């Protein structure tokens, strides 16, 4: 393994001083590309190489990497076991909407170096490493399904987001799986709360619209049948 790493060129950001972006040639991987490619493409390629290199030398098959795999499996299994199978529709609606937001927050947070995951499950997107962010949609979708009324949902959401941001995240940081760079646990808490209520609002609205529209459709059908007889 180390031999492969030695052959890869070393990457230094100092070799990329503040060049003006725009038209110039560069390397993508180890291939020279013609000019006209933006500098960001070049930098992205180097960064991905660095991520893969670090992942190969430090992360993969390391004890922390196995812990990540184990925790992820447990998380998804727990979600499936806790899922009320008679109301899959509600939970899945919440889940898919929350996953889109989660992916956006996760990637943007990494791009703006707000936080970092020192150990990667896989060195490229999607970020399966972020146990804290993955558990947000999973746990909240179960809460959404179990507690249709706002009062109990609020209690559940506050407890869940508090546990994730003030217990799980410090634990992950302690274990070397998460690192706050330009971020604080309190920010996490508020962002998660925002997700909890924003997605609930959207999901409730969609369910309401569907029910209303179905009732209208049924009424029309009944009326048509009455006229027929």
């Amino acid at each position: 393994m180390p031999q492969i790493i030695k052959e890869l060129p070393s990457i230094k950001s100092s070799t990329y001083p503040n060049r003006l972006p725009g038209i110039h040639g560069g390397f993508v991987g180890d291939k020279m590309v013609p000019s006209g490619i933006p500098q960001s493409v070049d930098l992205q390629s180097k960064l991905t190489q660095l991520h893969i290199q670090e992942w190969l030398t430090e992360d993969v098959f390391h004890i922390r990497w196995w812990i990540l795999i184990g925790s992820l499996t447990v998380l998804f299994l727990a979600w499936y076991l806790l899922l009320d199978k008679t109301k899959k529709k509600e939970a899945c609606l919440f889940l898919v909407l929350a996953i889109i937001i989660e992916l956006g927050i996760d990637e943007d947070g990494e791009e703006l170096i707000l936080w970092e995951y020192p150990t990667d499950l896989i060195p490229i997107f999607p970020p399966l490493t972020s146990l804290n962010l993955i558990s947000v949609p999973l746990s909240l979708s179960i809460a959404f399904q179990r507690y249709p009324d706002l009062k109990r949902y609020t209690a559940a959401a506050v407890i869940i987001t508090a546990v994730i941001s003030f217990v799980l995240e410090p634990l992950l940081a302690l274990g070397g799986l998460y690192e706050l760079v330009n971020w604080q646990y309190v920010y996490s808490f508020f962002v998660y709360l925002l997700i909890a209520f924003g997605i609930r609002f959207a999901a409730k609205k969609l369910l309401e619209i569907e029910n209303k529209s179905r009732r209208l459709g049924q009424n029309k059908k009944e009326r048509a049948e009455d006229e027929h007889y």
Partner: protein
Amino acid sequence: MAKTRKKGQKMNIIKVPARQNLKDQWDLTQTRITEWLQSELFHFRWWILLVLFCITAILLWKKAEKSRIVELTIFTAIIVIFVIILDELGDELSLWYYSADIIPLFPPITAINITCMPLIYMLIYQRFGTWGKFIIATLIMATVFCFVFEPIFVWIGIYTMLKWKSIYGFPIYFAIAVAAKMIVNAIYSDKEKRKA
């Protein structure tokens, strides 16, 4: 671990630790934002994308059958998840890149990913209920995406392929539609059984 923090070069709010991956990441993000400010924002292509985004977002809402809105939302959201994951992967692996975007950060090529493509997928899903018709419609759609839309985007100058060919995308466009429909069917499976 001792952290020697130094201030970001352009934005002082962000502190950049002296570690290679974080420094490179911040370099990249800053370069993206600079490039976006210089040659994308308020340019003609940017306005096209913004208008496209607004129109397709409205169509997405108007065209969806309200009596099936939950099912349609789940299907469309799964498509969005697949598309943004694949697009970001292609971006990270330097398979292709886009030279215009509404925002400089993730997700890439926002208008096409979040509204345009999902709109087309949703209309097909809504219109063609049976697997046979759905598959034929999806195959036609994938062909149009690969051999009409992609060349147009390349020609306009929004999309550049580095280590990629349009034909590679064909099975992917098709597979994500089939996978999303299978997932939705699995979510709705119990209810159908109980009805029967």
